[in-house]
């Protein structure tokens, strides 16, 4: 097996890594944002429930949740390893993303919300047009960090047999006995994915920066 074949075998797992990330990250964002809005604006009872959600899912290792969802909860249901893995990571990520969005909402809220209410906007309108647009900008740096974590955590679906980068590195490492090269290749691919994503988000952050005089 030549070097090109070796690398391309591992690299072809990128499809799964990217696929898992593209499901887990946006679904986590959607759930996380909705829950964060409930947490911040939904009253005391909702805040308590959201706090419980956050504590539970940030407390469970993603791999454990992966196993629970794949082997226990969906027993008999035809949920593929790919989807079980993606959704588990999405749920875990939603708890972290909820905290990110919540922090951003809280640091914008208060006075800005009051100013919006003062011109007669409803609570919902104020959140939609005044708080959220500013919160999004604040959330990008921590969100970029979370995106990097999800990309790396996507490797956990190897445990369910999804042939992503890490699993392919193991397989080809075992068959060729060149496991050091295999794992190094995987590391480089993960690094490139994470680096590219964080760079892209940094550009986005710069683009969305509100102009101001120093």
């Amino acid at each position, binding site marked *: 097996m030549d070097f090109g074949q070796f690398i391309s075998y591992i690299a072809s797992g990128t499809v799964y890594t990217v696929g898992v990330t593209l499901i887990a990250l946006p679904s986590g964002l959607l759930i996380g944002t909705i829950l964060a809005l409930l947490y911040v604006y939904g009253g005391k009872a909702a805040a308590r429930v959201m706090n419980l959600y956050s504590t539970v899912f940030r407390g469970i290792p993603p791999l454990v949740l992966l196993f629970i969802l794949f082997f226990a909860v969906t027993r008999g249901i035809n949920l593929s390893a790919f989807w079980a893995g993606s959704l588990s990571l999405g749920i875990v990520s939603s708890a972290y993303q909820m905290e990110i969005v919540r922090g951003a909402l809280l640091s914008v809220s208060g*006075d*800005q919300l*009051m*100013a*919006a*209410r*003062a*011109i*007669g*906007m*409803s609570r919902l*309108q104020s959140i939609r*047009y*005044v708080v959220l*647009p*500013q919160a999004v*900008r604040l959330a990008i740096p921590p969100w970029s960090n979370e995106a990097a974590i999800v990309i790396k955590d996507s490797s956990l679906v190897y445990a369910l047999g999804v042939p992503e980068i890490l699993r392919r590195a193991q397989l080809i490492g075992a068959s060729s006995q060149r496991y050091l090269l295999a794992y190094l290749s995987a590391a480089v691919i993960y690094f490139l994915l994470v680096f590219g994503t964080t760079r892209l988000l940094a550009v986005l952050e710069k683009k969305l920066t*509100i*102009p*101001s*005089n120093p």
Partner: protein
Amino acid sequence: MPEPILTIKNLTKKYGENVIFQHLDLTVNEGDTIVIIGPSGTGKSTLLRCINLLTRPDEGQIWLDDMEITAKDCDEDQVRQHIGMVFQNFLLFNHLTALGNVKLGLSKVKKMSDEAATEKAMHELARVGLADRADHYPGQLSGGQQQRVGIARALAMDPRIMLFDEPTSALDPELIGEVLEVMRQLALDGMTMLVVTHEMGFAREVADRIVFMEKGYIVEEGSPDEMFNHPKFPRTREFLWKITELYGKKETDTN
């Protein structure tokens, strides 16, 4: 007999055991400029927030024209668009340009078309002398300019009454004049205004009535002449003397 726009009866606000103000009565007539003065921590700002329902009073009633806005079935959002509020710290929407700040309420609350909202917003910005700053973000404007945008934002909703909560306290001395000038012009145009401020020059020149509040009570109210020259209570005299010493010089400097 002038028509009262705002009527406050027996208003009380507490935070727990802490009484902010108690049994307060106040009437504001159409076209009046009322200036509320008094030491800090006497509930002036809280009173303004109660009037536009950003804070709920514990007791008493408030009427806007003939409508009791403290009534349970009253639509807060409906009420607030008729009461303009200008904040001490401007509180512009940081992610929107000056134009965007003034337009937002027009588009989202009054549901005006983009074209109509832009036209109206530009008109209001021109009124505060900032038409040429329409595409600037708050971070690109001076404090005085930001506060004038804040005034334009409130004016755009065509409010029945404007509330000013220490509109110049956060400004550098050299920027106070431009804001007061806009307010003076508004008063001359017949806008009904309720102003909390320490600017005694403004109070003396523009106010129809001055209300002196202390420790949650209205101590005394009257025309500027009565208040500055013949106050009934020693406390009023004492406060006015102190405040003129502190702020009077600045006022002469800026004018």
